[in-house]
């Protein structure tokens, strides 16, 4: 037993090994411990994510995938175990603003214009007005919404709002992007379009992404790795590598794509039993 961590250490500190962006060891989460409504949300999670990976967390509702994402974000602390982001405790990574976050609801502020929404994290980080303006303009170009800079969120469609939320999450160039079912509320066509947009942005910015979803095709289409989670208490059932190369219009019709979809579906079925 005692040799395992020392071996891991040797690997992670070894020459040429890229430093991990996320390193979770033995993390558990129990809500309301000791009370009648105690819930064991996560059990003994071990997960490591290297730089530039696109990881999706998939599993039935109640499997704790959003909870796991919140552990990484340090929005909630683990009950036991450790969560490290960029080789430091997740809490410190949050204080250092190492990651950007996007949710199922775009969570835009109605009282701010699109530009001002994207500037919000930059304001909190004390960027100068001019630098904020320039960066917001760049981000709007990235998500192709430049002509809506001075609109209010309520004037935008759901897909456009989600793009603004992504622009906001990426505005300060975090090395890590955490996304909790960001496309869950979008219609199928918008959703596929947003997936392509996200992949393009991921490649352009070389960000590491952790993405929570219900959708098997979405997980396979986006990821370099699909993490299949099992419920009650939440745990990692299997990790499926996806190597489909650059995605394009024909990827969704590719037999290799369907093979992976089937593989993930089979893994999920096993979990449900």
């Amino acid at each position, binding site marked *: 037993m005692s040799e395992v961590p020392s071996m891991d250490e040797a690997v992670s500190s070894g020459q040429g090994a890229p430093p991990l962006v996320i390193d979770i060891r033995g993390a558990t989460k129990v809500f309301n411990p000791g009370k009648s409504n105690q819930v064991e949300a996560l059990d003994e999670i071990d997960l490591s994510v290297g730089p530039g990976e696109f990881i999706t967390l998939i599993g039935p509702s109640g499997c704790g995938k959003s909870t796991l994402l*919140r552990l990484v*974000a340090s*929005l909630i602390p683990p009950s036991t175990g450790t969560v490290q982001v960029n080789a430091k405790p997740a809490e410190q990574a*949050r*204080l250092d*603003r190492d*990651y*950007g*976050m996007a*949710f*199922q*609801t775009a*969570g835009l*502020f*109605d*009282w701010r214009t699109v530009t001002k929404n994207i500037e*919000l*994290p930059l304001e*909190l*980080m004390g960027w100068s007005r001019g630098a904020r303006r320039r960066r917001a303009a760049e981000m709007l170009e990235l998500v192709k919404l430049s002509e809506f800079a001075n609109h*209010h969120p*309520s*004037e935008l469609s759901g897909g456009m709002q989600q793009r603004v939320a992504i622009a906001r999450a990426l505005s300060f160039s975090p090395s890590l992007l*955490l996304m909790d079912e960001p496309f869950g509320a979008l219609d199928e066509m918008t959703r596929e379009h947003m997936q392509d947009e996200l992949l393009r942005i991921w490649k352009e910015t070389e960000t590491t992404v952790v993405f929570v979803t219900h959708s098997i095709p979405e997980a396979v289409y986006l990821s370099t790795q699909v993490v299949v989670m099992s419920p009650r208490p939440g745990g990692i059932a299997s990790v499926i590598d996806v190597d489909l190369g650059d995605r394009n219009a024909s990827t969704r019709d590719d037999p290799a794509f369907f093979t992976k979809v089937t593989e993930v579906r089979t893994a999920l079925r096993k979990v449900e039993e």
Partner: protein
Amino acid sequence: MNTLKGFSAPIVTGVVLLGLWQGVLALLDPQGFVLPAPSEIVGALIDNWDEVFQGARITGFVVVSGLIAGIILGILAALLVTRFRTANETITPLAVAVNAVPIIALAPIFNNWFGLTSPRSNQAIVVALVFFPIFINTTRGLSQVDRSQIELMESYAASRSRITREVRIPNAMPFFFTALKLAASLAVIAAIVAEYFGGRQDALGPMITQSAGLTRYDEAWAAVLAGTLIGAVLYFAVLLLERVAMPWNSLIRAQSGDQ
């Protein structure tokens, strides 16, 4: 154009109703003390302009000062209650208990505290009545915030006060203004009824009771009209303030197809 359209319907309704009122009275010709015609009320307003204007000024001052103090106290209490658990556990039940008291019934007692002819007692009644709706609604607006917006701010390591400023306060604004519209008309009612029992004798309240006592109903109605105008002016002032304070809100309403 659209604003004009929006206003024309209520104006037409008002004019028709006043015409009916005047016409029916002319036809039935009841004795003047039952209900004076609109023309008689306006006549009494012009004849007694100085007194009514003076009364409206005094009552208006009680209304506005009480309203402002009630708003400030209501907002402060709401901020305290959402920020500190102990404040929530002490202030909220207290506010609910105070609200259960029929506050207007305290007017004679307040007169005893503040002096029979002091407007302070009337102001105190207005403050007490305005406080509760402002407090309850603002508290709700400060606490019923989209969870992802709070998590987002926490992900940026934003401080609590920053979250309050950036998220909770803007979120509470529509709730606050809904309460303020209620509170504005409540304040006029509270001030005039409180004045029935004491305070300055040249205010609108005493003018109504005295004119009615002397069967000068047209003068009583003229004073009621002045009170109505105070309420209307306040209501429109609140609407204007709402537009200035929340320019994004009219966009949301336009989007959802409301007025």
